[in-house]
């Protein structure tokens, strides 16, 4: 008497569960989740020749350690400098540089050499409110020496429809924050 009503409704409940699942094959497409950046390339051009130095972490955060090139420049030279940011985990490669260019009003690149005598960066582009962007610019090296160049991309989106970008580093958050070793010789 006790056993009988036990088994069958229970099995029924389980089967019901599986049956509904079977005809409900959902899927999620997250093609541009996380807006992943895997590579940052700096292009230095002087006297008609271009050198490219890359920071590359193709498997994204974690996993294998990134490879970071050492920037090697000549002293007392002015280089035209551009930056490219890419998501190389996608096929074809997703060029995020264009997205940043389209949203200049909420992006700011910051280049910080240490020591500061290593090189001087001058912005070459402005956004619609005449604030610096940093996709293109120039770098003038100082005397021979070694140090670091910190490259930051600040994402400074509007807050409640009001722009937050004010030309300073402070608002927003880092989309890129990496250090290159620099040799000026």
């Amino acid at each position, binding site marked *: 008497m006790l056993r009988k009503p036990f088994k069958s409704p229970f099995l029924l409940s389980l089967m019901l569960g599986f049956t509904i699942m079977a005809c409900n094959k959902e899927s999620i497409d997250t093609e541009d989740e996380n807006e992943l950046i895997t590579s940052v390339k700096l292009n230095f051009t002087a006297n008609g020749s271009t050198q490219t130095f890359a920071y590359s972490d193709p498997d994204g955060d974690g996993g294998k350690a990134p490879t970071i090139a050492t920037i090697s420049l000549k002293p007392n030279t002015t280089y035209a400098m551009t930056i490219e940011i890419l998501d190389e985990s996608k096929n074809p490669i997703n060029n995020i540089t264009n997205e940043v260019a389209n949203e200049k009003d909420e992006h700011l690149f910051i280049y910080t050499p240490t020591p500061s005598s290593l090189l001087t960066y001058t912005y070459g582009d402005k956004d619609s409110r005449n604030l610096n962007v940093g996709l293109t610019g120039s770098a003038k090296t100082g005397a021979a020496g070694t140090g670091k160049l910190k490259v930051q991309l600040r994402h400074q989106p509007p807050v*409640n429809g009001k722009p937050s970008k004010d030309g300073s580093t402070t608002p927003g958050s880092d989309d890129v924050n990496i250090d290159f070793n620099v040799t000026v010789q």
Partner: protein
Amino acid sequence: MKRTGFLYIILLTLGVSELSAQTPKDCDCFIQGIVQDGVTKQPIVGAVILIKELNKGVSTDAKGFYRIANICQGKYTIIGRIVGYEEKTYTISLEHGTEQNIKLSETELHLANIDIKAQKIENLTQNKTSLENAALDQTRGQSLGEALKQISGVTTLQTGSSIAKPVIHGMHSNRVLIMNNGVRQEGQQWGSEHAPEIDPFVAKKITVLKGAAGVRYGSDAIAGVIMLEPDALLDSTVLKGEINSVYFTNGRQTVNSGIIEGGFSNSNAKKSTIIPYSIGYRVQGTYKRGGDVSTPNYRLANTGIQELNYSLSANYKRKNWTSDIFFSQFNTQIAVFSGSHIGNVSDLIEAIKRGNPLAVYTPETFTYSIGRPYQDVLHNLLKIKNTIKNRHGVLSLTLGRQYDFRKEIDILRGDKNLAQLFKLTTYTGELLFEHQPLLKVLSGSVGINSLYQENLTTGTLTEPRSSTVLIPNFQNLTSGVFVIERIVRKQWEIEGGFRYDFRHLNVYRIPRGEQNTVNNQRNNQNFTGTVGINFRPNARWNFLTNISTAWRAATVNELYSDGVHHGAASFERGDENLNPEKALNTSFTINYISQILQAELHFYNNFINNYIFLSPTGRPALTIRGAFPEFLYTQTKASFQGFDFTTNLQFVKNISLNSKISFLKAQDLSHDQPLIQIPANRIENTLRFDHKKTTISLTNLYVAKQNRVPTKIIFTDIPSSEIIFNEYGGDFAPPPSAYTLWNAAISQQFAIRNKSSLTISMTVSNLLNTSYRDYLNRFRYYADEIGRNIVFRAKYSF
């Protein structure tokens, strides 16, 4: 004698005795009646009739008759209980000068007895606290987590002001089980910023069971269980309703909620051959909308909320058969404070250094609009329950389906829409049999629970497309069987039970940097047990002691996390080799009730083997977005020891003092240091003045500084040369200072015509507009808690 498992209590007379010269004028009411078997109408001998508020009780005599005299005026809850029958509860109102015979018609009473909603097995020996009636009304409009703070020992883990998760005795998320209308709530509860997907307006009673409760509720119930229960549906031909309106000045939040319920029964049918049946139904809905909230000194940009919830329920009762159906939908959009969008640890350190958020995140202008980042959550719950009674007992089958769809929309370039998506579908089934008393003393139940769950975050279940999702796709099948038996004597109740659970987890994921799907399978099984004693030497004292175990298998985020936790500025790594947690919880509760003093002291010691937590390594994890401190999921032996003390002293007529103290010491026993993120000790005192239908109260809350925080990195295999985040034991900032808050409230009830009533109240929280930060708020690093909030509430019932 036919025993059908329910009591039939007739409240014969209830009124004012004329012969009461010795007793004070107001305390000369009495209540008397007869207790009968619901079907056979045979008198029940030895049933206990208790007045809950006074803890006054009598037993029925040989004719089933009882009488309790010298009761003061007021509202009381009458409980009738005897082993083998369902407990019956009535609310009565005794008023001086109005002699009244109870107006319940016989048929109404009869059908009320067929009501078998009380299927849940009451745990008799563990500490339970409920929020209902006026206490629940005072929390209306707040989220579930906020509302439960009324209960001593319960705090919240917050993400700003709008996301609050309940914390019981220092534990939260997967260690707190929520039973929503009898169904185990399954959302994305593993996330510390994922609040329960529940509209508290659905419930008329919210109960917190503190301590491990693995035997009845299955895996995960390590810290406790939160049970939300609606009122029983109506079973006579009436129409009732309730409207609640709440306005919060801070955030200009409005909450409107309504209930319409009715029923139909053929009990008035002339022919006695017709089998009586009844139908009950309820429609309930809530709409909430709030804008940016303010701290005492600044407004927080993008902190609005919107919520639209509804539920439908119906039942059909016929003789020994009841069918219930319940559907609810919860729908919310919660804006997340713009200033909390932290990139890497240097962003976070800058934010901490600044103290206050930047001006751009603290705008002058108020807005209701919800911008990025925000969460968008949908939760559906469908429950179907069938219950049948026969001479052996009560058999019930509860089936549930839940669907939880969570979107976390971040600030993305190019206004891209997709963010982290989580789709969780859960099927639950429970078959429960409550048997008739064996050998006249042993009552109890046996049951089987089963749960099947499917989580989708990328691609299709077996073919994930992305390796960068927060948690992988998985299937989870859990089944358990349990037995709980109890012996109820006049002064003693002894309870014991055990359970076996099996869990199968099937994970489909693409590991970082790889192309192919990996399938990981895990099987866990476990036995849990409980034993407890409830001793009631007399009407004033009650002693409970209980030893229970519970277990919890590691969740997928603990096993497979591998990436940056957005907003928390931490790099979190799971550990595939984590073993299930096992808790051994011992508790002891002393309860004292007299007319002027009610006190409860609850001691607990929760020892957890393999306690899983996130611990800093102090090492930086280098990413293209900068350095993040690394945190690993690891396990340890942990203990949670403490006490909750609640007292209510009515030292003068109309004036009472309510005090609550919560003390908790949580220790990582393997590493001999305190555990991280444990709520600070606190004391709350409320002075209350009641006169007729007016209540005025003033509350002081003191929360101490959490001085017990970890001081060292626990991973010994990490060379000290790699450790760079070593301050505050791996935390980003020291715990905030102690704080004191004042709250005030006034409420007034009006009677409108015979059955309608209107209650209006005004509450001011953070009366002095104090700036403070709480250790368990994730935003404590860069923003204050919200300032003064004046809340107006109106409740109209008809």
